[in-house]
């Protein structure tokens, strides 16, 4: 009899989580390289009172059974890896990937993490590092006397030295790609790590084998679309309200049933 109260509660929990995910997206509307998430739901178990196709007599079947569902639950939060907009910064170490791929960075514990946020800087030793100081993998070191750094669309990095017109190649940026990027795990700081669901990283040269190309002097801004998120927010809020309305309806009906005959 009280099934509906619990079903409505699962609906409310699902919507609350939906709002959590939307709020996180909105909070990161200006985060470089941020990829929005989407909460995914599925229906819970069904209580089958009568199977469809059961025999009503020896010659006839019941055309439709009786099944009462018990609500909804979140099943996954998928990252959506669509391209964000580009913002021109002019910074020589501000890089965007046009297309698929992630930059690789070495974490303090030696493992490799992946990011789309290409606003790199130099540290005291000239290494190219993220805003948090994690060095790019494979490491790229810019000589202290370099006057300019040029990064080509295929990741080839060249520098010019004072008093010389010749350019010197100092390395190549390598990108990583995953068959199921939605399976990557976010660890904050714009970084992702690989999981068994994402599959192993496939490394490659920008511009080849389906990898995106690199553009220097831009950053990729968040792919969160405010209008879309606000609409999702309205849907989630209304869905929450409707579910709470179910609770109230059930409560009022039960109240009447309890007070029968008074």
């Amino acid at each position: 009899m009280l099934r509906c109260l619990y079903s409505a509660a699962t609906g409310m929990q699902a919507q609350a989580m939906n709002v959590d995910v939307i709020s996180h997206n909105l909070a990161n509307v200006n985060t470089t390289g941020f990829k929005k998430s989407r909460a995914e739901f599925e229906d819970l178990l069904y209580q089958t009172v009568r199977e469809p196709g059961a025999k009503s007599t020896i010659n006839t079947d019941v055309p439709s059974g009786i099944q009462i569902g018990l609500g909804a639950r979140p099943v996954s939060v998928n990252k959506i890896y669509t391209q964000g907009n580009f913002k021109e910064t002019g910074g020589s170490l501000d890089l965007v990937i046009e297309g698929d791929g992630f930059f690789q960075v070495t974490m303090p514990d030696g493992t490799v993490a992946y990011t789309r946020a290409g606003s790199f800087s130099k540290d005291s030793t000239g290494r190219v590092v993220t805003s948090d100081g994690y060095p790019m993998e494979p490491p790229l070191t810019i000589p202290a006397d370099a006057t300019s750094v040029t990064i080509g669309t295929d990741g080839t990095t060249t520098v010019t030295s004072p008093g010389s017109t010749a350019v010197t190649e100092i390395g190549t940026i390598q990108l990583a790609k995953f068959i199921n990027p939605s399976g990557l795990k976010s660890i904050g700081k714009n970084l992702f790590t690989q999981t068994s669901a994402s599959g192993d990283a496939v490394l490659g040269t920008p511009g080849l084998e389906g990898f995106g190309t690199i553009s220097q002097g831009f950053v990729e801004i968040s792919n969160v679309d405010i209008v879309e998120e606000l609409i999702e927010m309205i849907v989630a809020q209304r869905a929450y309200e409707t579910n709470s309305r179910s609770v109230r309806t059930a409560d009022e009906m039960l109240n009447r049933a309890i007070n029968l005959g008074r």
Partner: protein
Amino acid sequence: MWSGYYTAASGMVSTLTQLDVVTNNLANMTTPGFKKDVAHFQTANYRTEPETPGEENLFRRILNSQSTLAGTKTDFSSGPMVSTGRNLDLAIQGEGFFVVRTPQGDRYTRQGALQINEKGELVSASGAQLLDKNNAPVTIPGNTVHFTENGDVFSDGVYVTALKVVKFDKPEGLSKEGTGLYTAAQGTKETILETPQVRSGTLEKSNVSIEEAMGDLIRIQRTFEFQERVMTTLLNDVARKTTEEVGRPT
């Protein structure tokens, strides 16, 4: 006792069941591919007054009829299609179901928010393997995956296989198992669609409409109150008056 008492009571039980069904629909308002259920009721157990021989009754008196739940029917009408920009989101335009393999056997679903597992297989959000036309799980050999509008799967530009999309002659023979999956009752015939209409980068939203569901909630509540009123009248007025007043010496 009064047969109307039992009639009203059965009505109240039915109305509560109806609330269960509507509440589940509402809880799944944002579940992709969800199809709403509709409860329908029937009257049962008529007892008719015996006709007096020689007299023709114009109206037959029907007593003690009860309301019982006859069944829940799933409304398989399409939900709105929403573009997501994620190429592993698949929606079937029009009729049809994807076939997935679970440890309990093959199941049907319209929920197309797919993932690729660590073996490179296409799986549903809850991890069940998606099947191709040869009833085998779909393994993606390359680094990219792309779907055509007819459900052909390409990886790195090379054809891999075609997804199995089936339709049923009697969709009412499908029963819900939860997690977006359906099982087919015995004797339900499936037909493989040769050219299914599959949309990549799109999800089918739930077909629950908030207006209809709110209307249902109000109707259910008022129906219940009305039935409760009938019951109270029987208990308080009819029953009490009969026991307290009938036969009282005046």
